[in-house]
C-alpha cells in the first residue's frame, strides 16, 4: 500500500493534536495510531460536507475522478465552480472536527 493525501489535506491542520499527544507522553507508535483515526475522522466529515453540497448531477463525475486520483488538486478547482465557498466550508469544518478530537483527547 502507498499513502496518498486527499486533495483537501492542505486545509487540515493537526499541529495542536500532535502537541496534545506529546503532552500525554505517548510513544511514537501510539501517536501514529491515534493520528490515523484522527485523519480518518477529518476525511469522513469532509467527504460528507462535499457530497451534501454538491449538485446531484455532478456527483458521479466527482466520485469517478476522486476514486482514481484522490490527491488531484484540480478536484478542488472543479468543486469551487459547483459549491460556493467550498474551501472556506472545509476549513471551518476541519477546525470544528479538530476541536472535537482535542476534546476527546483531554
Amino acid at each position: 500500500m502507498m499513502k496518498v493525501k486527499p486533495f483537501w489535506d492542505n486545509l487540515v491542520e493537526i499541529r495542536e493534536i500532535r502537541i496534545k499527544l506529546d503532552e500525554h507522553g505517548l510513544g511514537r507508535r501510539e501517536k501514529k495510531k491515534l493520528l490515523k483515526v484522527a485523519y480518518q475522522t477529518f476525511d469522513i466529515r469532509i467527504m460528507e460536507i462535499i457530497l451534501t453540497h454538491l449538485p446531484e448531477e455532478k456527483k458521479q463525475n466527482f466520485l469517478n475522478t476522486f476514486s482514481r486520483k484522490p490527491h488531484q488538486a484540480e478536484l478542488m478547482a472543479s468543486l469551487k465552480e459547483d459549491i460556493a465557498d467550498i474551501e472556506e466550508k472545509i476549513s471551518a469544518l476541519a477546525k470544528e472536527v479538530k476541536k472535537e478530537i482535542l476534546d476527546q483527547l483531554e
Partner: protein
Amino acid sequence: MKKKDFKHLHQKVNKLQKKALKNLEEKHGQALRHLEKKGLSFPEIRKFSLSFLIGAGLTAAVLMALPEHLQPKVIAKQVQERVHLKFMAEEEIKKFMAEKVADLLPGAIGKITGADRDKICQLFERILKVDVCFNLEGKELNFSFGWIGYEQHLKRYPGDTLSQHDEEQVAGIAPGLGAWGYFAPSKEEMTEELYQMEKYYVAVQTMYLPEWYTQTKELSQWYKHRKVMVVNTETGQACVAVVADAGPASWTGKQFGGSPEVMKELDLHLGPRKGKVLLFFVDDPDNKVPLGPIRYN
C-alpha cells in the same frame, strides 16, 4: 502514560470516527458504494494498493513507467530501495544500512531527537520488517545511541555453571545474578524461550532513569525481559535481545551491556569488545519476533 490510558484515548477518538462514518453512510451510502466499486473505501482512503506491482518483482524500469501521480517521492524511494536491495548480498545491505544510519546519527552518543529518530526507526522497519521505536508506551532510556560492552553469561537457575552454557564459554559467568534474578527457579523449569533469553540479553541503565526511584516496581516489571533490537552502527549488524540485567555503571563510559552471544552477532566480541550501537524497543505484543541475529536476506 499507562497503556490503559492510551486505550482509553483510542476508544474515544475511534468512537468519534465511527459516529462520523455512520452518519456518512446514512446520508451518502450510494456514493460510498460507488467509490468501493472503484476500489476506494472509507475510512482507508489514504492508502493505495501497490502490492500487485511489488509482488510481481518491480524493476526500476516499471517504476519509472508509473504515472506521476502514483509516484509520491517517499514511496518511490522506498520501492527503489527494495528493488535495489533485491540484487544486493547481505554484506552489501548491512553496509548500505550502516551508511544510511550514519547520515542520521548525532555526532555524540545520547538520545536521538528530532525528525531523525522517526527516520531511523522507519528505515529499519522498512528493510527488516521489525516494528522498532525509541519510545514505547511512554518509556524511553536515557541513551538510544551509545557504547555497548561485553558482559558475562548470567546464571539461569540455581546451580547453573559456565560449563552448562553451550556457547561462548570464554566469556565466563557473572558471580552474581542478573537484575531480575534467575530466569527460572530450577533447571527443570527452564524452557527453550528462557534459554534464548539468557543467550541474547542486554543490560540497560534502568537505575539512571529519572523516574526509577519513584516508579521502581512499575518500571522493573516493564523492563524485565523487554524485547529490544541492537544495531552495530559501524557495520549494520543487528540482533534482537531482551533486557535481563541493569548496567553498566556510568563510570565505565558505556551505556549498554551485551551478552557474549549478542556481542558476537554484532561482531564486537574481539579486541576492545565494545562498540557504538543503536538500541531500539521492539513493538512485538504477540511475541512473533525471534531472539537472535537478524539476517538481511
